[in-house]
């Protein structure tokens, strides 16, 4: 069991999302403690991506509230939520394909870049040193992921697995306190998935909180401190992996009932 902490990093409170007549999410509540890895699972169409989009500000809430570090973030614009320290990746990889791998990661570092338009145009030292710092930080991140040799390759020329990892590097460049990963292992082979697992576990050491959607059950059960199960927009189970695995509702949702 995870030790109970006074204030969770992420609080989802009675969140609902209605598309026309369809209730994509209904009265979903759960907390993610600081430094935890939380797995968000459920069959297709359960509302997992909808929820992650709402946390990152890409979709409005029909009801409820989302709090980060005790502060309301639902209703803020996506870039404001990013400023508060929420980084994310996408289910269908959304890298900037025309730009190089390095440029993609530097863009993640954008909030810490300094230098006004005028300073940049006059090539003043502040904008140049800031650019240098971002470059160094981005290269360091790529090195941790073992991808520094790909720094100058156009992002769209990369293999699928590499694109996923660059997207994670880009989100990490933001320096987030909460990282949202939407099926990061999709399309990866088992070796790549193992590598990713190890990497994500190593991130937890640096007190990063991760909310991860994944269909690879082995990976979820191995990594997560906490698993939340959604089905048809409702939360049907929540708890440590071993508890959730044996929960009758969950087995029913995944395998169907007699």
């Amino acid at each position, binding site marked *: 069991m995870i030790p109970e902490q006074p204030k969770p990093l992420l609080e989802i409170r009675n969140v609902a999302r209605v598309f026309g007549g369809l209730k994509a999410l209904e009265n979903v509540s759960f907390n993610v403690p600081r430094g935890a890895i939380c797995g968000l699972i459920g069959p297709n169409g359960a509302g997992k991506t909808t929820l992650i989009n709402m946390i990152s500000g890409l979709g409005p809430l029909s009801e409820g509230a989302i709090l980060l570090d005790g502060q309301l973030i639902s209703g803020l614009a996506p870039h404001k939520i990013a400023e508060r320290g929420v980084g994310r990746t996408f289910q269908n990889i959304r890298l900037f394909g025309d730009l190089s791998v390095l440029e993609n990661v530097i*863009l993640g570092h*954008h909030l810490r*870049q300094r230098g006004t338009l005028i300073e940049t145009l006059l090539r003043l030292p502040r*904008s140049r040193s800031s650019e240098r710092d971002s470059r160094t930080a981005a290269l360091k991140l790529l090195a941790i992921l073992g991808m520094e040799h790909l720094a100058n390759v156009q992002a769209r020329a990369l293999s699928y697995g590499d694109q996923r990892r660059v997207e994670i590097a880009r989100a990490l460049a933001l320096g987030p306190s909460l990282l949202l990963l939407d099926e990061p292992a999709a399309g990866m082979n088992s070796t790549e998935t193992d590598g990713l697992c190890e990497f994500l576990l190593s991130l937890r050491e640096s007190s990063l909180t991760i909310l991860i959607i994944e269909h690879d059950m082995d990976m979820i059960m191995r990594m997560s401190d906490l698993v939340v199960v959604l089905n048809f927009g409702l939360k049907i189970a929540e708890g440590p992996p071993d508890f959730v695995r044996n929960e009758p509702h969950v087995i029913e949702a995944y395998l169907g009932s007699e």
Partner: protein
Amino acid sequence: MLEFVSNNISTINFILINIALGLSIYITLATGLLSLSNAGFMAIGAYTVAIISTQSNIPFIVGLMAAIALGVALALPIGMLVLGLRDIYLAIATLGFGEIVRIIALNGDKVVHLFSQNRELIIFNGAEGITLTYRTPTIILGLPDTTWPILIYVIVIVYILATLHNSRFGRILASIRQDETAASTLGVNVVHYKLLAFVLGSAIAAGAGALSAPIVRVIDPHNYVFSRGVDILAYAVLGGMTHWVGPILGATVLTSLPEALRFLKDQRDIVNGLIIMLSIIYLPAGLADPRIWGLFKRLVSFPKRERVS
């Protein structure tokens, strides 16, 4: 060389002005915005300079500054108003702005008479437009003193765009063009940077319009109709929209082509149109296509060390 320049000075002037206009639409296209208000801002610049120089003795350079300042002052509120729109809707809204500018220029004197008791006062002169008095340009270092400001203006704009291209600003604008949702989740204030691109583009167009005034000399509303906006778009489309070199090539080719094809007489427009059509079909990324540059580089340089892929 000097003889070639002096014989073709009018074409060279227009090439330079069109390069500035092509660059003005490039900055918005590079941000993923299809804005067609450039002809309108060009009109604002041209009329500002024309009115200032016919109604007062204020020097041209001040008129140019005023034109650019007016472009910025108008682009800010208009940008805030229309930049929530996307794609074709933005194109239509900005086109509408261009039409409003043209209609105001056409009926400007009626507006003036609302505020002035002097019925004789004619500033805009309706469809006939404002005619600037001809002044024989003095030649400085082989170029007329009307060409120098345009040349310097183009150099300054190229410097600005090239510097931005290699800075965080260029990267951010490119990220908005490719995926503004992904950019916003990285903390990019998309509206803010779109407005920056729109205001910059509008200011460049207003300045180009101001500089064109002494060259065209007759500033009438017909100069700034829809087709002018399409011409400006064509410079960037033919040249390429991902690098600032694109609109320079596009504007140069499209402005000089009709002159170069003059020997074809009546068939000139057909061949002109055909060349544009073929280049768009076979060079969809424009004349500044990175592939062409790559090929060019390989032809002129020795193969470098193997690239790791």
